[in-house]
């Protein structure tokens, strides 16, 4: 029965654009400096009124609602999985190993050795894209710039880790592996595409945008 919704304010944190020069204008027609780097300053997406009971009314009632299953959970971003010491992306909730740290800064690590779970393998991804050959999952997360076109590798790894770590995450491990295999077979991360069986083609950029839509920060 559709119970009236109680609202969870954690559910839709305001997505605040980071610093950005806002071209203030007094009168509408005064000429602007044209530096609006952040067109949308703050956004508040409508909370679910209908459908799945995703809101846990813990914030106020100090208790988990009786149907507190969290089967609409969003996943962690590649950034969160890259820095497990920060606390979000917890690799022990996944069957994979990030590998050991190459240069141990004070409690931080920004370079990992090759002794973690490899990107290509039976329980991870199958394919031959040169950008990821010979690298571990964690090393792919740390690829930068054109080493990982459109950050496709980082996002597909984050999606796979979320599929194991987040109960109720939108995609299963098999879904994520299927997406990778399809793109790898159709040209891979640089200039490849996803070929749907409805004849519809998606660019790698659109696939990354889709994965972002399943992550908490981009909701």
């Amino acid at each position, binding site marked *: 029965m559709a119970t009236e919704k109680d609202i969870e304010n954690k559910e839709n944190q305001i997505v605040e654009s980071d610093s950005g020069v806002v071209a203030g204008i007094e009168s509408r027609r005064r000429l602007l400096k044209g530096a609006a780097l952040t067109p949308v300053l703050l956004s508040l997406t409508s909370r679910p*009124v209908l*459908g799945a009971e995703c809101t846990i009314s813990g914030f106020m009632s100090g208790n988990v609602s009786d149907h507190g299953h969290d*089967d609409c959970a969003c996943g962690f971003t590649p950034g969160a999985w890259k820095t497990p010491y920060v606390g979000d992306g917890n690799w022990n909730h996944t069957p994979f190993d990030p590998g050991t740290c190459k240069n141990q800064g004070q409690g931080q690590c920004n370079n990992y050795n090759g002794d973690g779970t490899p990107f290509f393998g039976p329980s991870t991804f199958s394919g031959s894209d040169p950008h990821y050959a010979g690298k571990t999952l964690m090393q792919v997360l740390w690829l930068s710039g054109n080493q990982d076109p459109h950050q496709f590798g980082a996002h597909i790894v984050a999606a796979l880790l979320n599929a194991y770590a987040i109960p109720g995450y*939108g995609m299963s491990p098999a879904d994520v592996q299927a997406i990778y295999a399809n793109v790898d077979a159709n040209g891979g991360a640089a200039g490849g595409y996803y070929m*749907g069986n409805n004849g519809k083609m998606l660019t790698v950029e659109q696939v990354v945008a*889709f994965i972002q839509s399943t992550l908490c920060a981009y909701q």
Partner: protein
Amino acid sequence: MAESCLPLLVQVLRAPATAAVLEAPDWDRLIRQARHANLLGRLAHRVADVCDMAALPPPVQRHLDSARNFAAAHARVVHWEVNRIRRALAPLEVPVILLKGAAYLLSGSPVAVGRVFSDVDILVPRARLDAVEESLYWAGWLTTHHDAYDQRYYRQWMHELPPLRHVRRKTVLDVHHNILPETARLHPDPEKLIAAAECIDAPDLHVLSTEDRILHSATHLFHDGEFEHGLRDLVDLDGLIREAAGAEARFWERLPARADELQLSRPLAYALRYCREILGTPVPEAMRQWTDRALPGRVTRGLMDALMARALRPPHPSCEDAFTAPARWLLYVRGHALRMPPHLLLPHLLRKAVRSEE
């Protein structure tokens, strides 16, 4: 003990003007019954149409106004969901046929006023099911049932895909390719339904024809056996029948003929019987022979009357007696038995019983 005659909620739905003279204790019970039956929004609109709301006790006005706001929010969400579904499916150029609540709302039927919805149901041609599922997937509708058994249960035996949930809006979408499961005893032909569907917003948005909408609602209630929303679905049926009878010439000839054509005579016969008995839906005497022919023998009919009399009451302590829970359970098993052959039914019921214990 339960009221012997009709529950207060049903009495007021039948004669909303009587709300004007209700005393505080009656309002207290009425609002609680309506809230449990998910009919508080409908009740609020029915009362507002015939009574001077300002004359009602202030706390009552607050609850009724709150229910109307709640229903209005649901309507906005469904309108937006349908907009996004059409956007996702537009490239496929496939007819999108809305079912149940979404259909009543988007076609502007009075049945939708004040109604609440739990999800959106659409019907698409079976041949295009995979393409539709893929397009919805990339637009953010992901499956909620990763369990292999669930996937097989829906894809092989049922008449719909596993429920999809939108990854951002958390709304639930059911994609059907028929109105009854493959394994059901009755086999309405989906092609006939699709062919008779009416376009309400070109080129893609359709709803079932007036008769088919009624038959689908009757089938959903009297064949599937989900009585959690029993009274709400009966109120839908009552509204659809009154709307159609008033608007369509020779309606009372076309409805039974269509029911026979689609092998849905029994669910329709039950619908007409209990709508008339409980909600006072005007069904012409001429329909009596047809319903008698379509209903089962006196013994089964007597049993069904006893079960339905309890299952179709508001699910509220003030309307239930010792037999209500067993009646609902029997109808639940009957619903599944009609939908699944015996060799599938027993393991399925066991599995569901175990799952609900977890």
